[in-house]
Protein backbone atom coordinates (compact mmCIF):
# COMPACT_ATOMS: atom_id res chain seq x y z
CA UNK A 1 0.00 0.00 0.00
CA UNK A 2 1.07 3.54 -0.80
CA UNK A 3 0.75 6.40 1.67
CA UNK A 4 1.70 10.07 1.57
CA UNK A 5 2.94 11.12 4.97
CA UNK A 6 3.00 14.79 5.90
CA UNK A 7 5.21 14.83 8.97
CA UNK A 8 6.21 17.67 11.26
CA UNK A 9 9.98 18.09 11.05
CA UNK A 10 11.72 20.26 13.60
CA UNK A 11 15.48 20.17 14.20
CA UNK A 12 15.42 21.14 17.88
CA UNK A 13 13.45 22.81 20.66
CA UNK A 14 14.27 26.32 19.47
CA UNK A 15 14.16 25.81 15.72
CA UNK A 16 11.28 26.45 13.37
CA UNK A 17 9.38 23.39 12.21
CA UNK A 18 7.21 22.58 9.20
CA UNK A 19 5.35 19.72 7.58
CA UNK A 20 7.41 17.68 5.09
CA UNK A 21 5.86 15.33 2.54
CA UNK A 22 7.04 11.75 2.09
CA UNK A 23 5.54 9.40 -0.50
CA UNK A 24 6.12 5.89 0.71
CA UNK A 25 5.35 2.59 -0.98
CA UNK A 26 5.61 -1.03 0.16
CA UNK A 27 3.53 -0.68 3.33
CA UNK A 28 1.15 -3.47 4.31
CA UNK A 29 -2.19 -3.30 6.10
CA UNK A 30 -1.00 -5.41 9.03
CA UNK A 31 1.86 -3.04 9.87
CA UNK A 32 1.32 -1.02 12.99
CA UNK A 33 1.54 2.74 12.57
CA UNK A 34 4.94 2.76 14.27
CA UNK A 35 6.17 0.04 11.92
CA UNK A 36 5.07 2.24 9.03
CA UNK A 37 7.19 5.05 10.47
CA UNK A 38 10.09 2.55 10.88
CA UNK A 39 9.60 1.59 7.23
CA UNK A 40 9.77 5.27 6.25
CA UNK A 41 12.89 5.81 8.38
CA UNK A 42 14.67 2.84 6.78
CA UNK A 43 14.06 4.44 3.36
CA UNK A 44 15.34 7.78 4.66
CA UNK A 45 18.54 6.13 5.97
CA UNK A 46 19.16 4.53 2.56
CA UNK A 47 18.73 7.94 0.94
CA UNK A 48 21.12 9.47 3.47
CA UNK A 49 18.46 11.71 5.00
CA UNK A 50 17.81 12.31 8.70
CA UNK A 51 15.27 9.92 10.20
CA UNK A 52 12.01 11.11 11.73
CA UNK A 53 12.37 11.17 15.53
CA UNK A 54 9.38 9.71 17.40
CA UNK A 55 8.82 8.26 20.88
CA UNK A 56 8.04 4.57 21.35
CA UNK A 57 8.84 1.82 23.79
CA UNK A 58 6.73 -1.26 24.58
CA UNK A 59 4.65 -1.28 21.38
CA UNK A 60 1.94 -3.23 23.16
CA UNK A 61 -0.20 -0.35 24.37
CA UNK A 62 0.87 -0.20 28.01
CA UNK A 63 3.80 2.19 28.27
CA UNK A 64 2.24 5.41 26.95
CA UNK A 65 5.33 6.56 25.04
CA UNK A 66 4.05 6.59 21.47
CA UNK A 67 2.15 9.87 21.63
CA UNK A 68 1.67 11.58 18.27
CA UNK A 69 -1.20 13.46 16.67
CA UNK A 70 -2.38 11.63 13.55
CA UNK A 71 -4.84 13.15 11.07
CA UNK A 72 -6.22 15.57 13.64
CA UNK A 73 -6.62 13.05 16.47
CA UNK A 74 -4.39 12.04 19.39
CA UNK A 75 -3.18 8.48 18.66
CA UNK A 76 -5.02 8.45 15.32
CA UNK A 77 -8.62 8.00 14.18
CA UNK A 78 -9.85 5.48 16.78
CA UNK A 79 -11.12 6.15 20.31
CA UNK A 80 -9.28 4.73 23.36
CA UNK A 81 -6.20 3.57 21.46
CA UNK A 82 -2.45 4.12 21.57
CA UNK A 83 -0.47 4.80 18.38
CA UNK A 84 1.32 1.44 18.55
CA UNK A 85 -2.04 -0.37 18.53
CA UNK A 86 -3.15 1.56 15.44
CA UNK A 87 -2.65 -0.44 12.25
CA UNK A 88 -2.34 0.65 8.66
CA UNK A 89 -5.57 -1.21 7.86
CA UNK A 90 -7.29 1.83 9.39
CA UNK A 91 -6.15 3.79 6.33
CA UNK A 92 -6.74 3.36 2.61
CA UNK A 93 -4.21 2.93 -0.16
CA UNK A 94 -3.27 6.40 -1.41
CA UNK A 95 -4.29 8.21 1.80
CA UNK A 96 -2.55 11.34 3.01
CA UNK A 97 -1.68 11.09 6.72
CA UNK A 98 -0.72 14.22 8.65
CA UNK A 99 1.50 13.47 11.67
CA UNK A 100 2.17 16.22 14.22
CA UNK A 101 3.73 16.28 17.66
CA UNK A 102 1.50 16.81 20.72
CA UNK A 103 0.77 20.51 21.15
CA UNK A 104 0.77 21.97 24.66
CA UNK A 105 2.75 24.70 26.36
CA UNK A 106 3.72 22.20 29.04
CA UNK A 107 4.91 19.67 26.40
CA UNK A 108 7.57 21.52 24.37
CA UNK A 109 8.78 19.84 21.19
CA UNK A 110 12.28 18.37 21.53
CA UNK A 111 12.68 17.14 17.95
CA UNK A 112 10.27 16.24 15.16
CA UNK A 113 7.45 14.27 16.85
CA UNK A 114 9.12 13.95 20.25
CA UNK A 115 7.81 16.17 23.05
CA UNK A 116 9.07 16.66 26.59
CA UNK A 117 6.48 15.14 28.95
CA UNK A 118 8.52 15.46 32.15
CA UNK A 119 5.90 17.91 33.46
CA UNK A 120 3.88 14.75 34.22
CA UNK A 121 6.79 13.34 36.21
CA UNK A 122 6.94 16.48 38.32
CA UNK A 123 3.21 16.18 39.07
CA UNK A 124 3.80 12.54 40.10
CA UNK A 125 6.66 13.61 42.36
CA UNK A 126 4.26 15.82 44.31
CA UNK A 127 2.33 12.92 45.78
CA UNK A 128 1.44 10.01 43.52
CA UNK A 129 2.91 7.57 46.03
CA UNK A 130 2.23 6.46 49.59
CA UNK A 131 4.49 6.66 52.63
CA UNK A 132 2.80 3.82 54.54
CA UNK A 133 4.77 0.57 54.64
CA UNK A 134 2.59 -1.94 52.84
CA UNK A 135 4.76 -4.97 53.53
CA UNK A 136 4.73 -8.02 51.32
CA UNK A 137 2.05 -9.13 48.88
CA UNK A 138 0.53 -11.39 51.52
CA UNK A 139 0.25 -8.50 54.00
CA UNK A 140 -1.53 -6.38 51.40
CA UNK A 141 -4.43 -8.80 51.64
CA UNK A 142 -4.74 -8.05 55.37
CA UNK A 143 -6.38 -4.71 54.55
CA UNK A 144 -9.90 -5.47 53.43
CA UNK A 145 -11.09 -3.27 50.59
CA UNK A 146 -14.61 -3.56 49.15
CA UNK A 147 -14.61 -4.88 45.59
CA UNK A 148 -16.30 -1.79 44.12
CA UNK A 149 -13.73 0.49 45.76
CA UNK A 150 -10.84 -1.63 44.47
CA UNK A 151 -12.44 -1.70 41.02
CA UNK A 152 -12.96 2.05 40.83
CA UNK A 153 -9.38 2.59 41.98
CA UNK A 154 -8.15 0.20 39.28
CA UNK A 155 -10.22 2.06 36.67
CA UNK A 156 -8.13 5.18 37.18
CA UNK A 157 -4.90 3.34 38.01
CA UNK A 158 -5.08 2.15 34.40
CA UNK A 159 -3.72 5.57 33.31
CA UNK A 160 -0.48 5.01 31.37
CA UNK A 161 0.51 8.68 31.42
CA UNK A 162 0.61 8.97 27.62
CA UNK A 163 -0.51 12.60 27.56
CA UNK A 164 -3.24 12.15 24.94
CA UNK A 165 -5.63 13.96 27.32
CA UNK A 166 -3.40 17.04 27.31
CA UNK A 167 -2.78 16.77 23.57
CA UNK A 168 -6.44 16.69 22.61
CA UNK A 169 -7.59 19.28 25.18
CA UNK A 170 -8.14 22.73 23.74
CA UNK A 171 -6.83 24.14 27.04
CA UNK A 172 -3.91 21.70 27.30
CA UNK A 173 -5.32 20.72 30.69
CA UNK A 174 -3.75 17.83 32.58
CA UNK A 175 -6.87 17.39 34.70
CA UNK A 176 -7.67 13.85 33.53
CA UNK A 177 -4.12 12.59 34.15
CA UNK A 178 -3.74 14.32 37.52
CA UNK A 179 -7.20 13.25 38.68
CA UNK A 180 -6.44 9.63 37.76
CA UNK A 181 -3.23 9.68 39.78
CA UNK A 182 -4.91 11.35 42.77
CA UNK A 183 -8.09 9.23 42.80
CA UNK A 184 -6.18 6.00 42.31
CA UNK A 185 -4.54 6.42 45.74
CA UNK A 186 -7.14 8.52 47.57
CA UNK A 187 -9.83 5.89 47.05
CA UNK A 188 -7.77 3.27 48.91
CA UNK A 189 -7.07 3.09 52.66
CA UNK A 190 -3.31 3.09 51.95
CA UNK A 191 -3.68 6.50 50.33
CA UNK A 192 -5.67 8.11 53.14
CA UNK A 193 -2.89 9.47 55.40
CA UNK A 194 -1.70 11.96 52.73
CA UNK A 195 -5.05 12.30 50.94
CA UNK A 196 -5.53 16.07 51.39
CA UNK A 197 -1.89 16.95 50.87
CA UNK A 198 -1.77 14.82 47.71
CA UNK A 199 -4.66 16.68 46.10
CA UNK A 200 -3.37 20.12 46.98
CA UNK A 201 0.27 19.48 46.04
CA UNK A 202 -0.41 17.67 42.77
CA UNK A 203 -2.98 20.18 41.54
CA UNK A 204 -0.66 23.01 42.54
CA UNK A 205 2.13 21.48 40.44
CA UNK A 206 -0.34 21.09 37.58
CA UNK A 207 -0.89 24.88 37.67
CA UNK A 208 2.85 25.63 37.95
CA UNK A 209 3.53 23.53 34.85
CA UNK A 210 1.31 25.82 32.73
CA UNK A 211 -1.41 23.25 32.05
CA UNK A 212 -4.78 24.91 31.42
CA UNK A 213 -8.04 24.60 33.37
CA UNK A 214 -10.52 21.85 32.60
CA UNK A 215 -13.67 23.11 30.84
CA UNK A 216 -15.20 19.63 30.43
CA UNK A 217 -15.15 19.41 26.65
CA UNK A 218 -14.71 15.66 27.36
CA UNK A 219 -12.31 15.23 24.43
CA UNK A 220 -9.81 13.60 26.82
CA UNK A 221 -12.06 10.71 27.79
CA UNK A 222 -12.55 9.86 24.11
CA UNK A 223 -8.81 9.71 23.42
CA UNK A 224 -7.72 8.10 26.71
CA UNK A 225 -6.35 4.61 25.89
CA UNK A 226 -7.40 3.48 29.38
CA UNK A 227 -10.93 4.83 28.91
CA UNK A 228 -10.82 6.97 32.05
CA UNK A 229 -14.01 9.01 32.43
CA UNK A 230 -14.14 12.76 33.06
CA UNK A 231 -16.12 11.93 36.20
CA UNK A 232 -12.61 11.32 37.56
CA UNK A 233 -11.92 15.06 37.10
CA UNK A 234 -15.17 15.91 38.91
CA UNK A 235 -14.07 13.59 41.71
CA UNK A 236 -10.71 15.36 41.92
CA UNK A 237 -12.59 18.68 42.15
CA UNK A 238 -14.65 17.29 45.03
CA UNK A 239 -11.50 16.07 46.79
CA UNK A 240 -9.84 19.46 46.19
CA UNK A 241 -12.73 21.38 47.76
CA UNK A 242 -12.79 18.93 50.68
CA UNK A 243 -9.03 19.27 51.18
CA UNK A 244 -9.26 23.09 51.09
CA UNK A 245 -12.05 23.05 53.68
CA UNK A 246 -10.54 20.52 56.08
CA UNK A 247 -6.78 20.93 55.67
Amino acid at each position, binding site marked *: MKITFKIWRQEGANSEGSLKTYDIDGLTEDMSFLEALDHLNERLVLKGEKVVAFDHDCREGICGQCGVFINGRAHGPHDHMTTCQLHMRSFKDGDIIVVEPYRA*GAFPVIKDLVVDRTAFDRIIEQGAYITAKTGTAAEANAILIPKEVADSSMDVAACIGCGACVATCKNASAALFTSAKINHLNKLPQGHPEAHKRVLDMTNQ*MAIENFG*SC*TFTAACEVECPAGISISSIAEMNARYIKAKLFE
Partner: protein
Amino acid sequence: MFYRKNIIAVTGMFLCVFLIVHLSANAILLFPETTARTLYNSYSTTLRESIVIKIVAYLLYLSIIFHVVYAAIVTYKNRRSKKDKYIMNHKHETSSWASQNMGLLGVLILIFIVVHLVNFWARVKLGIGEKVGLDAYGNIDVYEVTYSLFHNIYYVLFYSVLMIPLGFHLHHGLQSAFKTLGFYHKKGLAVLAKISLIYAIIMSIGFAIIPVIVYFK
Protein backbone atom coordinates in the same frame (compact mmCIF):
# COMPACT_ATOMS: atom_id res chain seq x y z
CA MET B 1 -6.52 27.72 39.38
CA PHE B 2 -9.52 25.94 40.90
CA TYR B 3 -11.09 28.94 42.63
CA ARG B 4 -11.65 30.75 39.34
CA LYS B 5 -13.57 27.83 37.86
CA ASN B 6 -15.52 27.47 41.10
CA ILE B 7 -16.57 31.12 40.95
CA ILE B 8 -17.66 30.71 37.33
CA ALA B 9 -19.64 27.59 38.31
CA VAL B 10 -21.39 29.10 41.34
CA THR B 11 -22.30 32.36 39.58
CA GLY B 12 -23.41 30.40 36.52
CA MET B 13 -25.71 28.22 38.61
CA PHE B 14 -27.20 31.29 40.28
CA LEU B 15 -27.84 32.79 36.85
CA CYS B 16 -29.50 29.51 35.79
CA VAL B 17 -31.92 29.76 38.72
CA PHE B 18 -32.56 33.41 37.89
CA LEU B 19 -33.47 32.46 34.31
CA ILE B 20 -36.20 30.11 35.57
CA VAL B 21 -37.78 32.93 37.62
CA HIS B 22 -37.34 35.39 34.75
CA LEU B 23 -38.99 33.08 32.20
CA SER B 24 -41.87 32.31 34.57
CA ALA B 25 -42.51 36.03 35.00
CA ASN B 26 -42.24 36.66 31.27
CA ALA B 27 -44.97 34.09 30.71
CA ILE B 28 -47.36 36.78 31.99
CA LEU B 29 -46.84 38.47 28.61
CA LEU B 30 -48.68 35.58 26.98
CA PHE B 31 -51.99 36.47 28.69
CA PRO B 32 -54.61 38.59 26.86
CA GLU B 33 -53.62 42.25 26.51
CA THR B 34 -55.44 43.84 29.49
CA THR B 35 -54.71 41.04 31.99
CA ALA B 36 -51.11 40.91 30.90
CA ARG B 37 -50.63 44.67 31.25
CA THR B 38 -52.12 44.82 34.77
CA LEU B 39 -50.35 41.70 36.05
CA TYR B 40 -46.99 42.49 34.47
CA ASN B 41 -46.91 46.06 35.75
CA SER B 42 -48.00 45.20 39.28
CA TYR B 43 -45.49 42.33 39.35
CA SER B 44 -42.64 44.61 38.29
CA THR B 45 -43.71 47.24 40.85
CA THR B 46 -43.65 44.57 43.57
CA LEU B 47 -40.15 43.58 42.51
CA ARG B 48 -38.88 47.17 42.52
CA GLU B 49 -40.27 47.84 46.00
CA SER B 50 -39.02 44.65 47.66
CA ILE B 51 -35.87 44.78 49.80
CA VAL B 52 -35.21 41.08 49.24
CA ILE B 53 -35.37 41.52 45.48
CA LYS B 54 -33.02 44.49 45.77
CA ILE B 55 -30.43 42.24 47.44
CA VAL B 56 -31.02 39.51 44.86
CA ALA B 57 -30.65 42.10 42.10
CA TYR B 58 -27.25 43.19 43.40
CA LEU B 59 -26.23 39.52 43.67
CA LEU B 60 -27.33 39.17 40.08
CA TYR B 61 -25.23 42.11 38.85
CA LEU B 62 -22.24 40.77 40.78
CA SER B 63 -22.80 37.26 39.41
CA ILE B 64 -22.79 38.48 35.84
CA ILE B 65 -19.66 40.58 36.41
CA PHE B 66 -17.76 37.81 38.22
CA HIS B 67 -18.89 35.17 35.72
CA VAL B 68 -17.68 37.27 32.78
CA VAL B 69 -14.43 38.50 34.35
CA TYR B 70 -13.29 35.10 35.62
CA ALA B 71 -14.35 33.38 32.38
CA ALA B 72 -12.25 35.92 30.48
CA ILE B 73 -9.25 35.26 32.76
CA VAL B 74 -9.59 31.46 32.50
CA THR B 75 -10.00 31.64 28.71
CA TYR B 76 -6.93 33.87 28.40
CA LYS B 77 -4.84 31.55 30.58
CA ASN B 78 -6.08 28.46 28.76
CA ARG B 79 -5.12 29.96 25.41
CA ARG B 80 -1.65 30.70 26.76
CA SER B 81 -1.39 27.02 27.79
CA LYS B 82 -2.02 26.02 24.17
CA LYS B 83 -0.25 28.58 22.01
CA ASP B 84 0.72 26.25 19.16
CA LYS B 85 -2.26 24.88 17.29
CA TYR B 86 -2.51 21.71 15.23
CA ILE B 87 -2.43 22.05 11.47
CA MET B 88 -5.09 19.34 11.27
CA ASN B 89 -7.48 19.03 14.20
CA HIS B 90 -10.64 16.90 14.10
CA LYS B 91 -11.88 18.18 17.45
CA HIS B 92 -15.53 17.82 16.41
CA GLU B 93 -15.01 14.04 16.60
CA THR B 94 -14.14 14.16 20.29
CA SER B 95 -16.21 16.98 21.76
CA SER B 96 -19.28 19.09 21.14
CA TRP B 97 -19.05 22.38 19.28
CA ALA B 98 -20.61 24.25 22.22
CA SER B 99 -18.04 22.93 24.69
CA GLN B 100 -15.24 24.14 22.42
CA ASN B 101 -16.80 27.60 21.97
CA MET B 102 -18.18 28.65 25.35
CA GLY B 103 -16.24 31.93 25.12
CA LEU B 104 -17.78 32.91 21.80
CA LEU B 105 -21.26 31.90 23.02
CA GLY B 106 -20.66 33.88 26.20
CA VAL B 107 -19.70 37.02 24.27
CA LEU B 108 -22.92 36.78 22.21
CA ILE B 109 -24.95 36.44 25.41
CA LEU B 110 -23.11 39.39 26.96
CA ILE B 111 -23.97 41.53 23.93
CA PHE B 112 -27.57 40.45 24.40
CA ILE B 113 -27.51 41.36 28.11
CA VAL B 114 -26.10 44.84 27.40
CA VAL B 115 -28.78 45.58 24.79
CA HIS B 116 -31.45 44.07 27.05
CA LEU B 117 -30.37 46.28 29.96
CA VAL B 118 -30.37 49.38 27.74
CA ASN B 119 -33.88 48.51 26.52
CA PHE B 120 -35.44 47.93 29.94
CA TRP B 121 -33.25 48.48 32.99
CA ALA B 122 -31.85 51.82 31.79
CA ARG B 123 -35.30 53.17 30.88
CA VAL B 124 -37.34 51.87 33.81
CA LYS B 125 -34.84 52.00 36.67
CA LEU B 126 -32.37 54.68 35.62
CA GLY B 127 -34.85 56.82 33.69
CA ILE B 128 -32.50 57.15 30.72
CA GLY B 129 -34.09 57.63 27.30
CA GLU B 130 -37.78 58.06 26.49
CA LYS B 131 -39.89 58.52 29.64
CA VAL B 132 -42.03 55.54 30.69
CA GLY B 133 -45.70 56.32 31.52
CA LEU B 134 -48.01 54.88 34.20
CA ASP B 135 -50.85 52.43 33.67
CA ALA B 136 -54.45 52.75 34.95
CA TYR B 137 -53.38 51.56 38.42
CA GLY B 138 -50.51 53.99 38.75
CA ASN B 139 -47.81 51.37 38.17
CA ILE B 140 -44.92 52.09 35.80
CA ASP B 141 -46.07 50.75 32.44
CA VAL B 142 -43.28 48.23 31.77
CA TYR B 143 -45.72 46.28 29.65
CA GLU B 144 -45.87 49.18 27.20
CA VAL B 145 -42.05 49.23 26.97
CA THR B 146 -42.07 45.51 26.16
CA TYR B 147 -45.02 45.74 23.80
CA SER B 148 -43.58 48.58 21.71
CA LEU B 149 -40.10 47.01 21.66
CA PHE B 150 -41.45 43.73 20.36
CA HIS B 151 -43.38 45.45 17.60
CA ASN B 152 -40.07 46.32 16.05
CA ILE B 153 -39.17 43.32 13.90
CA TYR B 154 -35.42 43.90 14.31
CA TYR B 155 -35.67 43.65 18.09
CA VAL B 156 -37.87 40.58 17.82
CA LEU B 157 -35.22 38.94 15.65
CA PHE B 158 -32.40 40.06 17.95
CA TYR B 159 -34.14 38.80 21.10
CA SER B 160 -35.19 35.50 19.54
CA VAL B 161 -32.09 34.58 17.53
CA LEU B 162 -29.69 35.24 20.41
CA MET B 163 -31.53 32.63 22.47
CA ILE B 164 -29.84 29.99 20.28
CA PRO B 165 -26.34 30.68 21.70
CA LEU B 166 -27.96 30.90 25.14
CA GLY B 167 -29.33 27.38 24.74
CA PHE B 168 -25.95 25.96 23.71
CA HIS B 169 -24.18 27.83 26.51
CA LEU B 170 -26.65 26.57 29.13
CA HIS B 171 -26.53 22.99 27.90
CA HIS B 172 -22.77 22.74 28.36
CA GLY B 173 -22.53 25.19 31.24
CA LEU B 174 -25.08 23.73 33.64
CA GLN B 175 -23.71 20.19 33.65
CA SER B 176 -20.12 21.44 33.72
CA ALA B 177 -20.83 23.65 36.75
CA PHE B 178 -21.87 20.57 38.72
CA LYS B 179 -18.70 18.72 37.68
CA THR B 180 -16.52 21.71 38.51
CA LEU B 181 -18.06 21.78 41.98
CA GLY B 182 -17.28 18.11 42.46
CA PHE B 183 -20.45 16.20 41.58
CA TYR B 184 -18.97 12.96 40.26
CA HIS B 185 -21.62 10.24 40.63
CA LYS B 186 -21.56 8.56 37.19
CA LYS B 187 -25.25 7.70 36.84
CA GLY B 188 -26.11 11.07 38.37
CA LEU B 189 -23.99 12.78 35.72
CA ALA B 190 -25.86 10.96 32.96
CA VAL B 191 -29.17 12.18 34.43
CA LEU B 192 -27.69 15.65 34.85
CA ALA B 193 -26.72 15.74 31.15
CA LYS B 194 -30.36 15.05 30.23
CA ILE B 195 -31.65 17.66 32.71
CA SER B 196 -29.22 20.22 31.26
CA LEU B 197 -30.47 19.49 27.76
CA ILE B 198 -34.14 19.82 28.76
CA TYR B 199 -33.39 22.97 30.78
CA ALA B 200 -31.48 24.54 27.86
CA ILE B 201 -34.27 23.73 25.40
CA ILE B 202 -37.00 25.13 27.66
CA MET B 203 -35.04 28.31 28.39
CA SER B 204 -33.98 29.07 24.83
CA ILE B 205 -37.31 28.25 23.19
CA GLY B 206 -39.27 29.85 26.03
CA PHE B 207 -37.41 33.15 25.87
CA ALA B 208 -37.26 33.11 22.05
CA ILE B 209 -40.97 32.52 21.51
CA ILE B 210 -42.30 35.33 23.76
CA PRO B 211 -41.12 38.26 21.54
CA VAL B 212 -42.60 36.49 18.50
CA ILE B 213 -45.98 35.98 20.20
CA VAL B 214 -46.02 39.58 21.48
CA TYR B 215 -45.20 40.76 17.93
CA PHE B 216 -48.32 39.06 16.57
CA LYS B 217 -50.54 40.24 19.44
